[in-house]
């Protein structure tokens, strides 16, 4: 769609971007609860991405918007910070799934299980729940433990990923989708029923109160703090994604995605490579799960249904499978649509109903139209834009740098035999 136009324009002039940022920042500051203003500031990130200027300038601009402008103009507005941290949580999840689906081409429909693993890891040990099966009354832990638990959540989810992956990833192609779907459901059912014989998850009642993060005695329970925590995690995940994309592992993932047989004949172990993708994607979801649990202060198995997995999949596919900017865009778009636009539309219809203009059955509340919208999006993207809104592109290498490399002097690999041959 639009990115073709931008390509021919060589990007957006810097002035336009700066004006846009100023206007939407002002709107954000002066309007109490406006989806439009929020979308405006989000859109400025996309503008920056396509702005015709040096990469470093764009980075600084983006950082300024996210770290300074949004917190400064909307930091005292609970509503905006709440929406922003929700968007952040989904962006982080989608970036994790992008490694599995986008890079390695493994259609995982049970991704939310890893998110659940992280969330439950923190929830169980930070509340008195853990006393149910660990004697000694050591629990609950204080909110200071949130920070080490980011790592614990990561490790727990990664272990989950490996344990699930070991059997699941031997299954070929399309079957993987069904099997991961099945496993996702199995995990949810287990969490739902593991209040007996030993009460580990407290079953359908869920776990509460999960403590907010604490740092040097400051309780960080408001959306304002979560905004920064999530942002910090996203930056970490984006950097990891970028590094993976053009690494030994990233190439192996794409190779396996494109042609398993050829990949094997290049010495790539299918199982190890897929496991690495699964574990990496899972670990990111685990970290986000810890944040989610702390933010919600209450979790139960209903937060980890198949619809969550599908929602994150829609974000990845819509934005552009394998494309980091695409996935961020997709996640932001779908989250705002889901948590804001539909809700606003619902409220609007309700107000119409109250004034007697229309009669709306409760079932038709637009905020319940998740499945319909996800379904239509998946079909339309598959039919008309299978590579997503911002398709992934492989980076071109700087050939001059390669020729000038300190290694370019001698022949490497099998070609080293050339020079040996000539000497003898």
């Amino acid at each position, binding site marked *: 769609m639009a990115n073709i136009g931008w390509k021919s324009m060589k990007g957006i002039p810097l002035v336009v971007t700066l004006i846009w940022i100023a206007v939407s920042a002002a709107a954000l500051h002066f309007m109490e609860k406006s989806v439009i203003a929020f979308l405006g500031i989000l859109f400025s990130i996309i503008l920056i991405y396509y702005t015709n200027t040096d990469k470093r300038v764009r980075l600084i601009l983006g950082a300024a918007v996210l770290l300074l402008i949004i917190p400064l103009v909307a930091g005292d507005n609970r509503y905006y910070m709440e929406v922003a941290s929700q968007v952040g949580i989904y962006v982080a999840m989608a970036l994790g799934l992008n490694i599995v689906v986008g890079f390695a081409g493994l259609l995982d429909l049970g991704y939310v299980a890893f998110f659940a693993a992280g969330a439950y890891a923190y929830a169980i040990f930070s509340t008195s729940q853990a006393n149910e099966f660990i004697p000694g009354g050591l629990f609950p832990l204080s909110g200071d433990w949130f920070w080490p638990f980011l790592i614990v959540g990561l490790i727990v989810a990664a272990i989950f990923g490996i344990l699930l992956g070991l059997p699941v990833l031997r299954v070929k192609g399309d079957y993987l989708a069904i099997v991961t779907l099945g496993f996702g459901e199995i995990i949810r059912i287990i969490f739902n029923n593991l209040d007996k014989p030993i009460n580990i998850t407290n079953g359908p009642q869920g776990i509460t109160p999960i403590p907010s993060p604490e740092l040097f005695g400051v309780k960080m329970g408001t959306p304002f703090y979560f905004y920064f925590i999530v942002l910090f995690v996203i930056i970490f995940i984006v950097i990891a994604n970028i590094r993976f994309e053009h690494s030994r592992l990233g190439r192996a993932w794409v190779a396996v995605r*494109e042609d398993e047989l050829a990949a094997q004949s290049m010495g790539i172990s299918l199982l190890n490579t897929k496991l690495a993708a699964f574990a990496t994607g899972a670990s990111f979801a685990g970290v986000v799960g810890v944040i989610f649990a702390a933010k919600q202060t209450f979790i139960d198995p209903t937060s980890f249904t198949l619809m969550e997995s599908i929602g994150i999949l829609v974000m990845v596919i819509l934005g552009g499978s394998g494309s980091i900017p695409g996935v961020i865009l997709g996640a932001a778009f779908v989250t705002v649509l889901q948590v804001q636009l539909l809700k606003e539309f619902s409220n609007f219809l309700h107000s119409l109903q109250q004034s007697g203009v229309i009669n709306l059955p409760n079932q038709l509340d637009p905020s319940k139209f998740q499945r319909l919208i996800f379904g239509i999006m998946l079909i339309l993207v598959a039919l008309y834009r299978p590579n997503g809104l911002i398709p992934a592109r492989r980076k071109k290498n700087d050939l001059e740098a390669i020729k000038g490399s300190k290694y370019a002097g001698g022949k490497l690999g099998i070609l080293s*035999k050339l020079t040996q041959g000539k000497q003898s």
Partner: protein
Amino acid sequence: MALLEANGLTKRFGGLVANQDVTVKIEQGTITAVIGPNGAGKTTFFNMVTGFYEPDEGDVLLNGKSIKGLRPDQIAERGITRTFQNIRLFKEMTALENVMVGTHSRLSAGILGIMFNTKRVREEEERAKVEAYQLMEYVGIAHVANEAAGSLPYGLQRRLEIARALATNPQIILLDEPAAGMNPRETVEMTEFIRKLKHELGLTIILIEHDMKLVMGLSEYIHVLDYGRKIAEGTPEQIRNNPNVIEAYLGKSATEVS
């Protein structure tokens, strides 16, 4: 001792016997051809040597050690690599990246190393790039290093596939119909190129090919399969005059052999 020995390889698919008791010995630094009519089981033989099929009977020895039952990636690591009849490149990656994939098992970067972008990972990556680029120069396609592999013309894709195979630093390379679909001029170039691989890199080459001019001109030793069995082996001269071989090809393309 032969570099590669296939002893009594047998492979069945349901009722069909694709290979029956095939025994082949390959000496270091030679060019060997495996020929036979369509459906004779040549590709099945390749698949057993490279680990894509596990033989029902028989054994494959590399340097005297059995590699039977190993996965294709493990066999690739031990120095046997291949190209495919119907070129199988990673189409969305650039040509250079395709070749870099070949260096995979000689690199060591893991999840943490990549995430923290350690010095070792950066240097290893740079070396791999240089090596891949040198290989592309060697096969004469460095000018398309940054093109998407799937967008290259057919002849260049063949060369790219060989460059990618060379990047695994193999002892043995199996070429499945390297000149298929090429015009006579390209076929001559390919013949020269394969000879160069042997002389300059000391590679041992096994190839499947239907173009008899290429086979007879290039190979030092030939194995002939028919209906899954080996019916003859010998030098090109011996094969040319072997009555069994002529019979196998009669009614099909006897003129090509004689």
